[in-house]
């Protein structure tokens, strides 16, 4: 177990290092001179040169990279050249929005997807299964931004019951906050539950053919108990993987959904940083998101060992 964790951590270090390098490269590739942009059109060449050297922009790229990296290692992500805000502070401000959206979307997708997946597996090839599987397949072809438009049309424009844009912090008014989160979270959850349902259905059909299920049936256990207690856990590997991938992906903010519903999440922070050439914020934000993604995947790998004792005792 410890060796397994150790090997994964050793693998993560070069991957994360490469992520910082790629992040830095992408950020410094962005066109436009930051010093020029900050000073505006009144800038004289001397002013620009002075500001460039103050910001360290005149140093060679590798020196800037090492300087940034040495800061990051001790938790100093630098501060925005544009607003003067500390990058970590900006991330911490935006993160709760993205995490709330992610949690609500995952919760919604799991609450719908898991029971329906079990139901379809238990009645595989029945009419119900065919209808649900067909509907799920159709929904899978609908991107979340398309669903967002449909939901806005139905619930904001047509019925007028839910807001199309706007965000209220949870600490200010929890009810208003949740109301403003319903449509964004639903746009994401509606795309995700069909995938979860299909995966669980397919894995569970395989599980239900195993001997221990026949054994449980022979013992006369209730059908529901067999499905939820005996069959669910060994069928949930791919489900856990995909949910983990979604969590990792959405921690970085659902960029499009945040844009459509004007939510101040991490995705918006990154996109604003790109538009305004605020590369320190971009570097820090992307690095944060990438690290979070890698760590979530690492945790998912650890979850496998909880789900399946064979991995714990066998080969890493």
């Amino acid at each position, binding site marked *: 177990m410890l060796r397994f964790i150790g090997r994964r951590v050793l*693998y993560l270090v*070069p*991957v*994360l290092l*490469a*992520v910082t390098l*790629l*992040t830095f490269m*992408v*950020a410094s*590739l*962005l*066109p436009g001179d930051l010093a020029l942009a900050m000073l505006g059109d009144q800038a004289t060449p001397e002013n620009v040169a002075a500001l460039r050297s103050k910001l360290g922009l005149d140093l060679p790229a590798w020196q800037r990279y090492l300087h940034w990296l040495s800061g990051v290692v001790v938790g100093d992500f630098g501060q925005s050249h544009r607003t003067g805000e500390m990058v970590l502070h900006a991330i911490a401000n935006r993160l709760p929005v993205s995490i709330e959206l992610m949690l609500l979307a995952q919760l919604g997708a799991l609450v719908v997807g898991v029971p329906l997946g079990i139901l379809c597996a238990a009645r*595989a090839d029945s009419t119900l299964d065919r209808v649900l599987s067909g509907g799920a*397949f*159709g929904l*899978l*072809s*609908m*991107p979340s*931004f*398309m669903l967002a*438009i*449909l939901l*806005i*049309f139905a619930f904001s*424009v047509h019925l007028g019951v839910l807001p199309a844009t706007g965000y209220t912090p949870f600490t200010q008014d929890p009810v208003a906050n949740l109301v403003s989160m319903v449509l964004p979270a639903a746009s994401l959850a509606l795309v995700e539950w069909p995938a979860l349902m299909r995966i669980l259905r*397919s894995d569970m*059909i*395989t599980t239900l053919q195993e001997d221990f299920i026949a054994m449980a049936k022979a013992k006369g256990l209730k059908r529901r108990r067999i499905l939820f207690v005996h069959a669910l856990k060994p069928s949930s590997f791919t489900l856990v993987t995909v949910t983990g991938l979604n969590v990792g*992906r959405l921690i*970085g903010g659902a*960029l*499009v959904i945040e*844009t*459509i519903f004007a939510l101040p999440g991490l*995705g918006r922070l*990154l*996109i604003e940083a*790109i*538009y305004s050439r605020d590369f320190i914020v*971009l570097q820090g934000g*992307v690095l944060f*998101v*990438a690290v979070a*993604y*890698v760590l979530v995947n690492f945790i998912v790998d650890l979850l496998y060992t909880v789900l399946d004792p064979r991995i714990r005792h066998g080969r890493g």
Partner: protein
Amino acid sequence: MAAAEMTGVTDAPRRARRRSLGWVFWLAVVWIGVVLFGALAANLLPLEDPSKISLLARRQGPSALHLFGTDHLGRDVLSRVVYGSRASLAVGLISAFLALLAGGTLGLLAGYFRGRLESLTMAAMDVLLAFPPLVLALAIIAYLGQDMVNLTLTLALLSVPASTRVARASTLAIAEREFVVAARALGASHLRVMLRELLPNVVLPLLVYTLILVAVLIVGEGVLSFLGLGVPPPMASWGSMMSEGREQLDVAPHIAFIPAIVMFLTVLSFNLVGDTLRSMTDPRRAAL
């Protein structure tokens, strides 16, 4: 990975003939054909100029003159949807093909030679995967400039990791099989083994996967255009049409809904065709 389960590769054609494809499959093929034809022949069709603005005929509903109505600038929505399919299909198909070429090659090499080459390739893919894809796409497009070529290249780059994984998994599944070992023993060069023995067995699952990738990339192009970073205006694209239509949902919902429906049907068709073919080439799923 489903493709790793490919043990009965030779059974696939027989199974394909025995199992009927079903009318839904052919409906999807027909729809893809219609959209492809529209994209290729848009100039020859009796359509209005997709960028012709007529402010007197703004936000009109469907009529005999404008079958799908007009948008907020009075442009013909039908014509814009047809011309928009050019952007979506060109970007989707070409970038999927490029990803297939690059990812297929990398995956084949990694799966055949193993060792350090494999570790390095897969680690590089992990780095790419750890990156938030849209942010990477936006940054690259901001750097390279906003046009169709850069858009296609960016989406291709983002799709390489997944293609590589599929190709590697399929290669690993057959690299130790008898016919490969026999070819090696007969003195075949690495290149020959890869091209003559491995490639024919890897290319099928990879092609099927690429069909599904096309669906994903059409959505990707839609998202970027929706954010205003896809094909540059005034060129039509389904994503940008939806983005424009979003502002008019209360007065003229058809402006957003028509491109949405067309895009949904196209993505659904590619998914359907890909999924049907996959269940045929993958005996494990077919058995379910």
